[in-house]
């Protein structure tokens, strides 16, 4: 065994070029897989720093659509009445402003948690203490926070005396009671909060919006710990008994309510499907790349084994057993696997560091830390050894089998290649797999292209935005409104600015506010059938600045203020889906203008004064969604986003001007969503970008690996058959005839590989339809581009060997040694 190992090392050192090529190939394959697995590990497998994670479950609410959030009153009832959980905790996310000194406000993301949260999870403090039930009793009575480990490191300089220090949160005094353990950052895997606040402080955290007592406001995520010995099904049944009670007790809000349980960490069932699906696709793609790399390695080893046939034949003739020889050759491939796997792991570490350094262009802390933990190490090792076996076994088996005499005789006969060489078939398979990856990435690139040119209901070019929330900085409603007005006027007066307006939050920015709509005259629709609309607050001039078309009626103006009649503008989807009006020429019948609706039986009616075109609000792939717009001063909320458009100035300059205008009014204000309007679409494009980026990278990697595979196959064919080439030339064959006879079969195989690749791509395209925007699975340009790329790569890979074949000197190749 040890002797085999030493021999393997000696062989590898004797052929540095071969060893290097093999190690690099394997490093690419293993690196890609380890990097993907590192990410998948972080969002799926990583332990969350809690006790017995297998006992934890997320609760989803099903009333029509399934959502992961519940109302706080329902939470209290579920918590107190259930007998299936050892504990049930609630949490939700919110952006807050924090300052350690005067005026130095920072916006950061927090978790609001129920008092029992940490105890239910069994999370441990790193410093000080975490919350207990006693920290969440009296509304507004517990100004305490727990820092996440990362926040403590980044914002408090890892100060060990941080406990009991005071900070300002949204302008109020809070005391730090502890720091959570490093591996704990809440109960959602792709959200990394910086601090934790008791739920009882909700009104200070979300100023002007108190929902703790509203049974219709679904804002709280729930996580429960199963009692020992209970199955998920039993627990679900137990919870639904309570749900039915609640539905009877509160029909207005809870009618038809059902609860489902899913593993925690990915917003209940909400992100679970997409995240698992995409992770699966990525692992599959990475696996294919590894397979391609293995094919290359098998090809290299096979070529070498053929060259070593004489040595092997001599060994066999001397009485070595086949098993022994296979073992010796496997030892060689395993040694290679370990070297390549190690390099791959380094590559993965580098990629992970790169990803961590690259903050996604979105306004949320969605990236979990990417660490190469033992699970990743084990995965990489397993993948390497598996690869080593895969690419080692076939050549070893083939080289040691078969008839001895021809190898020993080695007459002037040219080597008989057989009809199809195993290696050539592998290369064809490799080309086929590359076609699949390339078509996949081309489809994603095309959808991204399409998404970028999609009509989102506003024109993101030549505009910039800056958002802030005055209530987080101690402003009351009146002073806040005055501040917004001053900023807006200042911006509008700036030279070069064509128009400016305010919207509470940008569409496509994850801040989704869906409300039930009660249309006047049809208010008794049951909850499960009641329509919803996404709601915005805007200043006059917003549609003009956005370049959103006003289809009927009027825009808001300055007379639409807190004291005037309540009005609203709705989009076309609202008109057709909710009011059931039809478009007739330039107007609608029945006419929606003047009709009234409201967001709850207790709230005032809003009269429709205008209709705008339908845009995209939650995601680029959504079906038309009803949306409503209310005047800024007629609706609650204190967050505003200033939008300014200029056709003469660069939009980055406009963004800077907005920042300056706000700072001049109040330098202490912390901004969110600052930048060009186009950059703010980052979140909406994020999934498409990630998919196009990763698939594109893998497609590229695949094509590089496949090209080297094709090159290896062709170069080896030419080298091995140079004598045959010489004979053919002596018989009068010209360059092209030689190339055809020597490389023709290889080219035929490649063609076969491409054909199989196309067939597989068609299947994959069908599976991908959910990920594609506005692009057919059978997209002509995507296929053409992929095939052109693979064709060019294959042609380039064949070029050098073909020239070498045409330039074989028959004098040299025919010389009899």
């Amino acid at each position, binding site marked *: 065994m040890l002797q085999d190992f030493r021999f393997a090392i000696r062989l590898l050192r004797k052929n540095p070029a071969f060893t290097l090529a093999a190690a690099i190939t394997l490093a690419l394959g293993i690196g890609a897989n380890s990097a993907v697995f590192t990410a998948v590990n972080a969002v799926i497998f990583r332990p969350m720093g809690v006790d017995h994670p297998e006992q934890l479950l997320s609760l989803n609410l099903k009333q029509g659509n399934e959502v992961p959030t519940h109302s706080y009153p329902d939470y209290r009832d579920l918590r107190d009445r259930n007998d299936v959980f050892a504990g049930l905790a609630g949490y939700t996310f919110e952006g807050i402003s924090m300052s350690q000194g005067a005026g130095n406000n920072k916006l950061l993301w927090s978790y609001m948690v129920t008092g029992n949260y940490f105890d239910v999870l069994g999370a441990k403090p790193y410093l000080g203490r975490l919350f207990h039930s006693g920290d969440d009793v009296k509304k507004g009575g517990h100004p305490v926070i727990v820092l996440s480990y990362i926040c403590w490191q980044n914002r408090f300089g890892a100060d060990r005396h941080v406990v009991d220090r005071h900070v300002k949160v949204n302008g109020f005094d809070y005391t730090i009671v502890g720091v959570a353990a490093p591996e704990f950052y809440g109960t959602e895997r792709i959200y990394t909060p910086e601090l934790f606040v008791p739920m009882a402080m909700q009104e200070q955290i979300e100023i002007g919006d108190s929902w703790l007592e509203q049974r219709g406001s679904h804002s709280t995520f729930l996580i429960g710990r199963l009692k020992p010995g209970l199955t998920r099904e039993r627990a679900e049944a137990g919870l639904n008994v309570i749900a039915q009670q609640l539905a009877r007790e509160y029909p207005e809000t809870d009618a038809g309510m059902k609860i489902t349980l899913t593993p925690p960490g990915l917003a209940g069932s909400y992100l679970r499907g997409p995240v698992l699906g995409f992770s699966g696709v990525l692992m599959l793609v990475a696996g294919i790349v590894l397979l391609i790399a293995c094919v290359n390695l098998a090809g290299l080893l096979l070529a070498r084994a053929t060259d070593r046939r004489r040595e092997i034949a001599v060994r066999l003739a001397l009485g070595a057993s086949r098993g022994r020889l296979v073992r010796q050759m496997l030892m060689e491939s395993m040694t290679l696997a370990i070297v390549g796997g190690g390099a791959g792991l380094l590559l993965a570490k580098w990629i992970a560091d790169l990803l961590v350094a690259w903050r996604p262009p979105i306004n949320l802390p969605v990236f979990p830390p990417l660490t190469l933990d033992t699970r990743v190490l084990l995965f990489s090792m397993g993948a390497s050894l598996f690869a080593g076996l895969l690419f080692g076994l076939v050549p070893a088996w083939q080289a040691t089998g078969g008839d001895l005499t*021809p190898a020993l005789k080695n*007459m*002037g*006969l*040219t*080597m*008989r*290649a057989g009809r199809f060489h195993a290696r050539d078939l592998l290369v064809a398979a490799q080309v086929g797999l590359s076609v699949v990856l390339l078509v996949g990435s081309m489809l994603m690139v095309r959808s991204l292209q399409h998404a970028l040119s999609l009509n989102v209901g506003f024109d993101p070019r030549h505009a910039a935005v800056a958002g802030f929330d005055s209530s987080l900085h101690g402003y009351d409603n009146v002073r806040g409104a005055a501040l917004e007005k001053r900023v807006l006027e200042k911006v509008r007066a700036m030279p070069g600015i064509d128009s400016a307006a305010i919207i509470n939050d940008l569409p496509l920015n994850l801040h989704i506010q869906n409300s039930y709509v009660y249309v006047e005259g049809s208010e008794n629709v049951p909850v499960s059938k009641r329509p919803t609309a996404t709601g915005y607050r805007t200043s006059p001039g917003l549609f003009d600045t956005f370049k959103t078309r006003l289809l009927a009626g009027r825009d808001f103006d300055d007379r639409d203020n807190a004291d005037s009649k309540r009005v609203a503008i709705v989009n076309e989807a609202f008109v057709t889906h909710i009011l059931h009006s039809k478009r007739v020429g330039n107007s609608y019948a029945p006419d929606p203008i003047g009709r009234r609706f409201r967001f709850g039986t207790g709230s005032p009616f809003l009269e429709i004064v205008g209709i705008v075109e339908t845009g995209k609000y939650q995601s680029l792939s959504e079906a038309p969604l009803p949306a409503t717009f209310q005047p800024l001063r007629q609706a609650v909320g204190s967050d505003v986003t200033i939008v300014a458009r200029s056709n003469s100035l660069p939009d980055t300059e406009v963004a800077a001007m907005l920042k300056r205008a706000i700072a001049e009014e109040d330098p202490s204000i912390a901004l969110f969503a600052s930048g060009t309007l186009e950059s703010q679409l980052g979140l909406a494009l994020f999934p498409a970008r990630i998919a196009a980026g990763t698939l594109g990278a893998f497609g590229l990697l695949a094509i590089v690996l496949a090209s080297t595979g094709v090159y290896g196959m062709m170069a080896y064919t030419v080298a091995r058959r140079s*004598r*045959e080439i*010489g*004979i*053919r*030339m*002596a*018989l*009068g*064959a*010209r*360059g092209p*005839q030689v190339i055809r006879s020597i490389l023709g079969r290889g080219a035929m195989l490649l063609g076969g590989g491409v054909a199989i690749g196309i067939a597989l791509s068609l299947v994959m395209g069908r599976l991908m339809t959910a990920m594609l925007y506005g692009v057919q699975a059978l997209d002509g340009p995507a296929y053409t581009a992929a095939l052109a790329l693979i064709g060019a790569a294959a042609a380039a890979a064949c070029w050098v060997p073909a020239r070498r074949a045409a330039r074989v000197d*028959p*004098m040299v190749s*025919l*010389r*009899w040694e």
Partner: protein
Amino acid sequence: MSAETQTLLRMNGVTKVFLTDEVETHALSGIHLEINAGEYVSIAGPSGCGKSTLLSILGLLDSPSDGEYLLNGNPVQDLDLGERARIRNREIGFIFQAFNLIGDLTVFENVELPLTYRGMPGAERKKAVQEALERVGMAHRVKHYPSQLSGGQQQRVAVARALVGKPLILLADEPTGNLDSQNGEQVIELLQELHRGGATICMVTHDQRYSKHADRTINLFDGRIVDEVEAAQQSSAH
């Protein structure tokens, strides 16, 4: 020599110098040579004296470093690669010491190869291949692969391949070198038979037994022709 004998090829002052690692090897120096149609010439000499090099230049596998080479009256020393390939294909038939059949092709396909490169239609090819294989007595083995034949049989197939295109001249480089004496004898007899049928043959051999069958033997030493012996003198020398 009768007045009708026609000079098939002529070399005037042909020289071949190989340059390897800055070492100059003078493989051939000042070769003057004429071969007439229908002649059977043998080239003899010790190993390394330049026999194969001479044959390669005769067969347009290689070109001389200096001097003039006329094939059928046309100078061929400066032709381009395509022209040389065309002439090799139509005017030259090679027989190698190592047989040099293509292992992946059947006997039939091997023999067919020169005709394929010529672009001859399939039916015509088939007929010509059949004829050539019959002449060498291998017509019963068309579907075999070279590895399934004995060395002597392989060389007979190689002879068939050389003559299938009806070349001006057959060039054989130690055709018996890889064969036992009995098989070697048979191949020589085959060549003699072809010669009697009118073929022009130039054969390299260092085996006295075989060179005596030739009309003329050219002795090479160190890249130079040291003497030429006509068959009559040869037999008288015995």
